[in-house]
């Protein structure tokens, strides 16, 4: 006997097409279906918020955008993309972005973990010290930029005066190398506490019995740090690295306030060039191409991190 119906739920008969679909799950179902209907409002909302602007951005990257009389696109084919790929100034900005990323995130990780390990050993007044350490993180980046600018101002800046007092007569924001260092340090000052905070959370999860066992076995502090503590908190550090990396690629505020990309383009990282192209030159088609390049890089970075997290079983 050939069975034409199935009775998987309480003896109710299923329609023939449903049965066919169960037999061949690759066959597409027609209509939205109940789950589709449930998802529809959220999908429409998401489309309004991000998918339509994203598609618009793609369209803009192949066009020249006119503003007057209502924004309009004029098809330009691959012009903007060809320009982006051959623009030496843009590639210089990418190089600055990479350098900036390595310096800031690298220093933040080194100092942040160091401070966290030191703080973890503090038993009395840790709360107070931690509050003080975390303070910079709660200042708006624009304010950090303004503070930094005033502190290194060549006319009345406190740090500049200190440098002059010890015979170093420089304007920190006036030369490419010192300006780069200055803005990188401002970022490090603001965001190192975040790494400290996340690392501290990780440190509190290290199994004390393992540490005791290591101590009993006579392991030195350095050995304990590198062979027990760091491997135990590596997952947490990876998350901290991910968070800061995503931020570093989009870095904008402090540089805009302090150097605006100068001197000699030394601090003009890609977000600044994107902003300048879009909102100073109003070359929105080219800016869209740069923006999509940034998006691609960010997605690639995120994929690398997700893969790493996945390998450690943290992405689920």
């Amino acid at each position, binding site marked *: 006997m050939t069975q034409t119906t199935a009775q998987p739920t309480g003896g109710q008969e299923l329609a023939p097409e449903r049965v066919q679909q169960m037999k061949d799950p690759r066959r597409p179902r027609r209509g939205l279906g109940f789950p589709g209907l449930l998802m529809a409002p959220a999908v429409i909302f998401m489309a309004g918020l991000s998918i339509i602007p994203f*598609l618009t951005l793609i369209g803009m990257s192949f066009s020249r955008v006119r503003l007057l009389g209502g924004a309009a696109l004029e098809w330009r084919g691959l012009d903007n993309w060809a320009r982006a790929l051959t623009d030496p100034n843009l590639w210089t900005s990418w190089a600055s972005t990479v350098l900036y990323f390595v310096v800031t995130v690298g220093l933040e990780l080194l100092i942040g973990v160091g401070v966290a390990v030191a703080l973890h050993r503090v038993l009395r007044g840790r709360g107070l010290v931690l509050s003080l350490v975390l303070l910079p993180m709660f200042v708006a980046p624009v304010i950090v930029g303004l503070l930094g600018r005033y502190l290194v101002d060549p006319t009345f800046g406190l740090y500049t005066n200190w440098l002059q007092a010890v015979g170093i007569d420089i*304007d920190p924001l006036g030369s490419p190398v010192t300006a780069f260092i200055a803005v990188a340090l401002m970022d490090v000052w603001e965001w190192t506490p975040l790494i400290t905070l996340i690392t501290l959370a990780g440190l509190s999860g290290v199994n004390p019995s393992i540490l005791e066992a290591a101590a009993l076995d006579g392991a030195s502090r350095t050995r304990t740090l590198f062979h027990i503590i760091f491997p135990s908190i590596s997952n947490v550090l990876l998350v901290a690295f991910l968070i800061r990396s995503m931020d570093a690629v989009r870095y904008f505020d402090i540089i805009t306030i302090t150097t605006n990309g100068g001197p000699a383009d030394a601090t003009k990282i890609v977000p600044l060039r994107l902003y300048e192209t879009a909102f100073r030159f109003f070359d929105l088609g080219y800016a869209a191409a740069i923006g999509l390049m940034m998006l691609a890089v960010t997605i690639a970075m995120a994929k690398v991190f997700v893969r790493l997290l996945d390998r450690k079983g943290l992405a689920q």
Partner: protein
Amino acid sequence: MTLSRRSLLRAGALGAGALAGGGLLGACGSGSQPAPVPEFTGGDEWRRFAGTTINFISENTAPTAAIAANLQPFTELTGINVRIVNLELSALVQRVALDLASGQSQYHVIYADPYQVLAPYSAGLADLREFIDADGYPPLEGGLEDFIPTQLAATGTFEDPDKVFALPYDCPTMIWQYRQDLFDAHGDRMRDDLGFDVTPGMERTWEEFFQIAQWFNAHVDEVVAGVGTQSKQHDSLMCDFSNVLWSYGGEYFEGGSEIGLRGATDPGRSLLASDEAKEAAAFYQRLVGIAHPGSRSWDWDGVGNAMAQGQIAMCVNWHEFASGNEESLPGQVSYAPLPHGPARSSAHFGGCGIGISGNTGGAERGAAWLFVNWATSPQTQLANLASAAGGGTPTRTSVYELPEVQAAEQRPSELPNMLTGPTMEVAWRDDVIGLRPKIPMWNECDTAVFTELSKMLAGQQQPAATMDGLARRIDQIVARGWQA
């Protein structure tokens, strides 16, 4: 519903196709005509739009600070409410461009920087002759002829001289600002050492200016340096350098000063690779080399602060810094036209006008004109000059002819900005005033200029290579053309 990758891609392609056709973006604005201004039915012309509220978007400049502090007379005269949005210039340009693109008119009166707003978006501004020549509006006192002609052309027109898109509103111009007390104290010795008359003025050459600065560095301890420059990678660097460029006979484009006065969409080939331009760049590099160490990170505010704090003996800066100087160093700062180079003396003009968004319609359009008329009137300009909130200097000749204004050119002065009066009379002469190119793509050219100069000042490239590279870059930018 299962969304396969294929269907997602298909939907994306359809969406992108629609966008490429301008469908969705086109919906962002409309090209419809603004509503007509209501007919005048008699009565007081100043009060015909009473009860209307308009928005004025302005750069945070001295005249706007003065007007914002004293709007009551306008409201009493017209019954119109004015909301003022004060912004830094680049933020203003963004908002104006996006407002014009929207097809709406969030901002009715616009501070129309000639290079960043007027040139690229003149098609989005109303031609003010529609009001100047019309009945039913109070007359423009003194007519257009009362405005300083060069300033009217530079700040109010673009390509077509018959259309007036803005009325001159402010007129900052770069002049030589120096510590009179230091020149008095050390002038004789300086003259003996250097072998020429050191009195600041256009009789001096840029080379002599350099030597005076160097002399201050070597012999005067009251200041950190003889000169400060505004050489940050910023618009200020282009402004500062342009004085030297024009003095040495250099030009940005083949069209020369006409491009600055009338404006052009196609200014021709860049002349920045000329020998004159290269000489100017070489001199400027030498000058910054002996300037206050902070010069490379100063814009005009930075150099203004340094002057006010007594760190430098002289600088080139906008003349409207005079009132601040007088407050910080009363009686100690004097003013002169800039030195001359092989070709001429040149004073960079940075004035702007105010105009009306072309999208403004109905009573707001008429009210906007009444505000533009009032804000640029001789009475308002005189009030601005005396304002405690700052105030600029007038753009009308009739104001300069007033006895109280002329008296203020000497100390003690009730109107400290007028201490620059005799200098400005020279600086605004047709053969002296320096006008940067009024082209729609100037923002990008400007950025290229100050970026490449910044690289030169950082020692990354030589002056000749800098100017060669700049000329090529500017030609590329101009070749892309402009469509607003």
